[in-house]
Every structure is written in C-alpha cells, then in structure tokens.
C-alpha cells in the first residue's frame, strides 16, 4: 500500500442543464491504493455513476468540475487531449453495464475488444491482437468462437463478460466497474462477481465497484463508501460498515437486505420510506434529514462533514 493509483480531493461536479445548475457530486475525497478495492454504494441519483465517468473525464460538455483528481501520479484535469486519451483504458478502464447498449451493435465482439489494443499500440500486429483477445475471452469464461458474434447474439451474462474482457485489453491498473451486475439474474451475477474477485487475486488490479446493491460489495470490496445526495456519508472497511453501520442512512441500506443465519431479518427486511432528493432541489441542512428516523432540529440547518467514527471509519452525521 504505497503510492495511491487514484486520489480524489474535494471533487465537485455540477451539470449545466436547461433547468439550471444541478449539483451531482458535492465534495468527494478518497484515495485508492494499488491493489485496493473500493465499493461505492447508494441509491440511483446519488452521483455514483457521475463520479465514475468523471474519473476518465467522460462527462458531457458544459459540465462544471472542480477539485483534484490524480490518476497514476498525473493531474487528470491538467492533461492535454492527447494525454487524456493515453490515460484512458491503459491506466483506468471502465466496465460498463452490459444490459445497456454498451456494445456497438454493428461490430463483432472481438473487433470491439481488439480496438483499444490497436489504439494504444499495446500489440504489434493484428495477429497478436487476435491471440490476446482469444486469451481474454478464455480468461473471462467465454468460448473463442463468440469473438465473431454480434452483441445481439449474446446473452446478458455473455455481454457483461465481453465488457470485462474489453476493459482488461490494455492491462489497466485501475478497473472502474459501474453496476456490472445490475440487470443480470442471480446466478450470472454470482459468476461475474466471482470472476472479478479472481481477477483481483491474480494481479495488483485496483478496483472501484459501483452498485446500489450493498450486499454485492461485501464480496468484492475492501473498503466501502456510501453516497447520498452527491456526498460520501460513511466509509470504512466493508464488513464493518455493512454489519455495524453508524450513519442512519447506511443502517437503513444494510437493513434492507436479509442477513443469512438470522431468520428474524429475513422475515422483515425493512425499507426506507421516501425517495432520494432530486439533485436540483436538495433539502436544507443534512440532505438525509427528511427521511431520517433520528433527525433532530439541528439536522435541518447543519450539513455535517465526515468525522471519525471508529478505527479507519468516517461518517457524516451530527449524532457521531
């Protein structure tokens, strides 16, 4: 655990939409060491996918970003267009959600896996790219004849594996997995998670795993960060955070999943009333206070920063 592969400091991202400025990420900071894996969880709209895309500067034009992102020692926001392209996929690669149209429908899977190798010249010839793409397919558990298949000929699980193979094409140091198991059925979800866990064991791959499904993260993440309304509200070692949450929001998230071996929780997985706030119209004070069962008067006015809540743990709540 030395030089962090990724360092995010006070990152703020504001979308410039027709409805005005919409804050999507509001002051997020974290470090990711080589080989470390960070799970990022939260409800839809909490800013986690925006955060993921910003790490390779993939946000739409006109988006206002401030703060600092250092990736492999380079200041992300100071990179020239050419320098940025060179960082993309070689230093950090993204595994997109395969159920969406993340694969080009008119190109074969193999061609899309080989494309970044040619762009970044990590292979000397097309033959080498073909050999490497066959190895990658084998690595992610796909038969080599699927290289010639078009995306519509693949199942959801196969498409997700293609996207993982594609992300590994240039041997990145950092893998950003944005909801890679969402919309897959449970068996396939487990296979994909096992595959990602294996990949981490084999190499010093750093991982950011984004999901709304907290239970998924305990298998793949060393550390957990819970996001709410564009901020990290709690972070710490993943089992500690999951089993012994300190922030009321994390408690509610964790309680939404039944615990194996605890029949009482299985009978009554509790939900959380209300919807997450719209980023364009956040409540005053702590943005969670309208849904918080423990909210006090001061929560309406004070938005607490992260503070230590135990060994290696932080939470943003006035009660801590």
């Amino acid at each position, binding site marked *: 655990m030395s030089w962090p592969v990724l360092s995010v400091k006070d990152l703020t991202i504001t979308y410039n939409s027709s409805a005005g400025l919409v804050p999507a990420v509001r002051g997020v900071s974290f470090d990711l060491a080589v080989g470390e894996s960070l799970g990022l969880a939260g409800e839809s709209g909490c800013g986690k996918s925006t955060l993921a895309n910003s790490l390779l500067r993939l946000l739409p034009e006109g988006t206002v970003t401030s703060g600092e992102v250092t990736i492999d020692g380079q200041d992300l926001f100071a990179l020239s267009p050419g320098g940025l392209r060179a960082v*993309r996929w070689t230093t950090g690669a993204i595994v997109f959600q395969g159920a*969406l149209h*993340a694969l*080009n*429908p*008119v190109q074969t899977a193999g061609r899309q896996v080989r494309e970044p190798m040619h762009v970044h010249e990590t292979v000397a010839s097309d033959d080498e790219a073909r050999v490497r793409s066959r190895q990658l397919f084998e690595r992610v558990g796909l038969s080599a004849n*699927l290289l*010639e298949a078009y995306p519509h000929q693949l199942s959801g699980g196969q498409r997700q594996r293609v996207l993982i193979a594609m992300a590994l094409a240039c041997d990145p140091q950092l893998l950003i997995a944005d909801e890679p198991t969402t919309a897959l059925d449970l068996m396939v979800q487990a296979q994909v998670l096992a595959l990602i866990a294996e990949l981490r064991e084999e190499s010093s791959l750093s991982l950011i795993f984004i999901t709304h499904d907290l239970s998924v993260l305990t298998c793949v993440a060393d550390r957990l960060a819970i996001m709410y309304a564009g901020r990290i509200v709690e972070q710490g070692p993943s089992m500690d955070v999951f089993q012994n949450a300190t922030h009321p929001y994390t408690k509610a998230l964790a309680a939404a999943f039944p615990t194996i071996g605890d029949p009482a929780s299985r009978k009554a997985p509790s939900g959380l009333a209300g919807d997450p706030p719209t980023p364009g119209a956040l409540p005053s004070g702590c943005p969670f206070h309208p849904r918080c069962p423990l909210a006090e008067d001061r929560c309406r006015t004070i938005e607490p920063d992260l503070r230590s809540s135990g060994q290696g743990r932080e939470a943003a709540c006035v009660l801590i």
Partner: protein
Amino acid sequence: MLTTEQPESRGRTRFILKKMLGSLLTLVFVLVFNFVLFRIVQSDPIGSLFRGRNVPAAKIADLRTAFGLDESLWVQFWAYVRQTFQLNFGISYQSRQPVWNEIVSAIPATVALVGISAVLSALIGTVGGVIAAWRRNTWKDHAITSGTMVFYSMPDFWLGMILLVGFAVVLGWFPVGGMTDAGTSATGVALLLDRIHHIFLPALTLTLAYLGEYALVTRSSLLDVMGEDYLTVARAKGLRDVVVRNKHAVPNALLPVVTLTAINFGFVLSGAIAVEAVFSWPGLGKATADAIRGPDLPMLQGLFLLFSAAVIFFNLLADIAYAWLDPRVEGA
C-alpha cells in the same frame, strides 16, 4: 445463440430471398394494375386518336380490329402481358414510333441528370447532416439545418425557374435549355464541356432540392445514436473524437439513410418530370410531361411500368444493403 458461422449467413440469405419474392409479387401487381388503370382512363382510345374530327364509322371499326380492341378484356390482357415481356409497349400517338424506342432514347439523358444529382445530394447531404448533428447547436449546425431546409421546402420546378431566370436569362452564364447547343458539331472534349455547361443548372436544381432530406434525416438519426452508451465506451477507450464519430456513431446512424438513398435512386428515372420540363432536358421526365399533355396513353403506360419497376428494384437493393450493414437483420 450463435454456435457457428452458418446459421447467420443462412438467415441473411433467407431474408434476401424473401425480399426478392416480395419484389416479384409487387411487380406482378403493378403489371395488372397498369393494365386496369389504362382501361379505366381510356374509355375510347380510337376517338382520342382523331380528337373529335369526323371520321367514317367503317374506318373506326377497322382501327378497332387493328388495335385488337374488339377482343375480350382477357384476350387483351394476355396480349398486353405477352407484349410487355417482348418489350413491345405499342406505338406512341405523338411520334408514331414504338414506345420502347422512345423510352430507350430518353433514358441516358435522365440517368445522367438525375443520377449525378442523386449521388451529389446523397453525399453532400449526409456529410452535412453528420457535421450538423456532431456540432449541434453551434453556428455550423444552424447554417446547415436552416440552409438545407430552405431548399427542401421549395418546389423543385420553382427553384429551377429562379435559377434559370437568374443564371441563364439575366446573367447569361448558362444555356436556357436542352442538352447540347443547337446544331453543334462539337466532338470529344468540346462536346463533353458543352454537355456539362447544359447539365449544370438542372443538376444544381435537383441536388439542392434533394439535399435537405438527406441532411435532416442524417442529422436526426445521428442525434438519436449520440445518446448511446457505446459512444461513451468508445471515448473511454481513448479513441479520437473523429474516430468515435466515423467508426461508431455514423455506421449506426446511416441505416435509415441507406433506405432513403435507395428509395430516392428508385425515383432516378421518374424523378425529374417538372425540372426536366423547365430546362427542356430531353429525358424521361420531359417525355412524361409531353405524354401527359397529349395525352399519349401508350407512352404513359410504358413509362409508368418502367418507373414502378425502377422503384421496386431499388427498394430490393435497399433491403439487401440493410441486411449487409446491420447484423441484426436475420430472420426478421
């Protein structure tokens, strides 16, 4: 699920065969419809030959026998089908020449004029649409969208007249009509230059008139594709913006444009009736306009059949192109 290469290519072959059969059936329908249509409009073909002049009844009866009009409809239909396949479309009322000869002699002029315009408008329009969409809401987009919209909304013959008056009559830069200078004995390069001089204004008219459709369809199709995740993926891979556009966005956006192009090419033969008339361009369009004025019914019947066949043929070509470009077209 794909196991080997074979099922996919079989699926495509089946798709193409199905489309060919469909085209053939449409052609048969057009053949029958063309026959019925002209029996309905043409109540007294012999009478229209004399335009109300006094002609002895015996002469008329002779002519009815000569043209086979005293036979039953079925016999007439059979003769029509047989003669159509022999490329015998009858004799033009106006020129007294076989309709087929008249049509064949007018084809090159039309194919040259409308062919050039169709290719130019498809190329320029598509490129314009791609630029407009990729740089949407910039001055480039506004210039391309509103510029092509202006020409798109103009009637083509009206645009032709304006250009004719402006560049041929007032400025005198171009000839007012025809395909070559009257009585010219030019050959070789001189003849070619003369032809280009003559074709310029009508070709410009048609290119401007068709341009807008391509630009607008390409633009809206590309805008749809631009929200797709695979473009974000392509950018994330470190591709240059122009590669993302040309390799990932445009191939997906061009699918509807391919159909439009093929359908427009189907109108290459019939496409320019009004514009050819404006510029006295001696092609099928002008032949049609002249035949309508007659009315020269055998000529019209032959032209209609040819125009329909061209549209059917290019629609088939569009389907085949689609199957080749879009791997998802299989058993569809």
